[in-house]
């Protein structure tokens, strides 16, 4: 399956929120939706989920306009919240039925997910009796129980301890293997780098950067080399001002010209005992900051 958002525009009164958002997501791959607060991520997600229509633009699934009755979407909103005073199994059943599941199927699916996330023992407890992380896992069940075709995860890892984060990672990987389309929004760049081959960075309702993450990083690599060597001192001395030590004890060398990269790498390996030398590629964090520092 292929999901395409084409040229979405949306304004609320005088305030133009989306200015032509286009992005593509395919089965089995996660797309990272990045942007600072107020960039238009939630609005994009809400239009995708048919909470309100876009002013213009279209959403296609496999080339045809999306039929919200036929396609199932699972959503883990950034603002978590269920009914705090209600029994967990009851509300999970309610949400699954709202999404069109039959009662028996819903029950079976909820049991499966509660078991999988290690929450079965809380089945008949009230939600507010659970810790924040566990509440979040319950919320995750509402997104997954109806076996959605498209899964939208907004900050899925916030509030989870490392063990639960691993559990969630497994779930996400499983969903990718099953060929689900996954939209992943987060400010925790390491998770995006881990899961998303494609990214789209929003700023002021525009997509300022999108595409394959690896290609983007390669493209944005400049005239810098990253070197690891036991002969750190000598190398630093040799390059003087043009070299600096990074936080993880590698040497970053700035060249006069990006074209010199290959020649300089050969020179380095010939001259010193080098463990690793590569073209310095910016981290996703650097790319994000660079593209969103000035809010449009």
């Amino acid at each position, binding site marked *: 399956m292929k999901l395409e958002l084409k040229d979405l525009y949306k304004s*609320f009164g005088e305030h133009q929120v989306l200015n032509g958002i286009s992005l593509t997501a395919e089965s089995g791959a996660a797309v990272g939706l990045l942007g600072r607060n107020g960039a238009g991520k939630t609005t994009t997600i809400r239009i995708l989920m048919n909470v309100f229509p876009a002013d213009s633009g279209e959403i296609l699934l496999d080339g045809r306009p999306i039929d919200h009755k036929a396609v199932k979407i699972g959503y883990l909103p950034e603002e978590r*919240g*269920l009914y705090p005073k209600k029994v967990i199994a*009851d509300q999970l059943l*309610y949400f699954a*039925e*709202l*999404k*069109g599941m039959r009662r028996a199927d819903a029950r079976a699916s909820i049991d499966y997910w509660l078991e999988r996330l290690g929450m079965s023992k809380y089945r008949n407890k009230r939600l507010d009796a659970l810790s924040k992380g566990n509440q979040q896992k319950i919320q995750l069940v509402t997104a997954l129980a109806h076996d959605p075709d498209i899964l939208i995860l907004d900050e899925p890892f916030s509030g989870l301890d490392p063990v639960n984060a691993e559990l969630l990672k497994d779930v996400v990987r499983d969903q990718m293997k099953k060929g689900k389309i996954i939209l992943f929004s987060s400010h925790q760049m390491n998770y995006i780098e881990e899961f998303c081959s494609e990214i789209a960075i929003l700023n002021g309702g525009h997509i300022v950067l999108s595409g394959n993450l690896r290609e983007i990083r390669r493209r944005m690599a400049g005239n810098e080399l990253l070197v690891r060597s036991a002969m750190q001192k000598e190398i630093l001395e040799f390059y003087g001002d043009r070299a600096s030590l990074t936080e993880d004890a590698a040497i970053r060398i700035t060249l006069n010209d990006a074209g010199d990269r290959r020649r300089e790498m050969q020179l380095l390996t010939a001259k010193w005992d080098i463990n690793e030398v590569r073209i310095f590629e910016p981290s996703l964090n650097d790319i994000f900051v660079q593209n969103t520092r000035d809010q449009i």
Partner: protein
Amino acid sequence: MKQFKTIFRFELGNYFKNKVFVGTTIVLMILLAVIMFFPRISGLIKSGSEEKSQKELLLASEDPALTQTAQAAFEKAFPDYQITVTDADEADIRSKVDDGTADCGFLLQDAQNYTYFVKNLSMYDANIEIADRILGGIAEMKAMTENGLSPEQAGSILATDVSHTVETTGKDQSQNFFYTYIMIFALYMVILLYGQMVSTSVATEKSSRAMELLVTSADPVKMMFGKVLAACLAGLVQLLCIFGTAFLLFNITRNDWADNQIVTSIFDIPLHLLLYMLVFFILGFLIYAFLYGAVGSTVSKLEDINTAIMPITFLFIIAFIVVMTALGSGDVDTPPMMVCSFIPFTSPMAMFTRIAMSTVPSWQIGISIAILAVSVFGTGVLAARIYRVGVLLYGTAPKPGEVLRMIWRGQ
């Protein structure tokens, strides 16, 4: 439709699983049972103990002849009182009444003047009127005998009996007053209580952010209608439980209430009035519940809800006061009531009162119900639109004008 059913069932379950809701209903039913069985229970207690509950009335006069005539007349006119003739003076009577030895006292200066002593003058104290009549009678008797009539002649003149019959072509207000009063009060309580429950329920979903998930899972219009209709059914069931219990118990204890006109008149409510009650209850409930629901969707925090629903509550209270005033005055066809019985927000109470207490042409009833039904539909549509916009708005609650503008733009 399936989604609506799911929402409706869930919302209804919220009421019936709510311990406070179930508890209040049961407590009210028990309370009614106690009230309905009260005459029987108190009868049992009374028959066991000595009957000594008669109130005491002191009668004093300086004229022994007057005292004698007055005593006979007082005994006849105050069957509830034990009449004690005393020669105590004013201060004595005052202190006896004040410390509760006697319940009241009459000090007759002469046949035309007397002082009435009572500790707390009740609103319904008719003793003065009775005493006035007795003394007036004594004076007339005296005048007649002085002018040559024999006491027998004078007595027969004064005792002339006038008999009458009343033919009511319309409604007998003294019969209908109490059940109309109770019905209006029930309508008022239920609409106010459930209306607030609806708006609190919407606001809770918003403040707990369950709304984020709800709006992406279900159609807001279905959510709104599911919520309001479930509340309406829950309210009806609760009323049915309470009034049903009362009616059932009344039929069991009917004999104990035979001499209580108020209670028997309440349960003699004609069927057609009950049906009107049902129609006005459902329509009135819906129109207010829609408004309450819509307003609930515009606030983000639960603590803002009271301020937000105040205008609707005021509107409803004003309607209630107009109706209650008219009901109390006995004239329910006053111009304000006529107007109110056609305005959809006041007509459920006003028109019902007029139907119960007066004779209303059927075309007026028809028009009133038609206007109300159309308004319920219109309010429902408007409320659903406000809801659709409101549920996504967080932060400061928007002004009504803003909300309308947003709906107009179709966002």
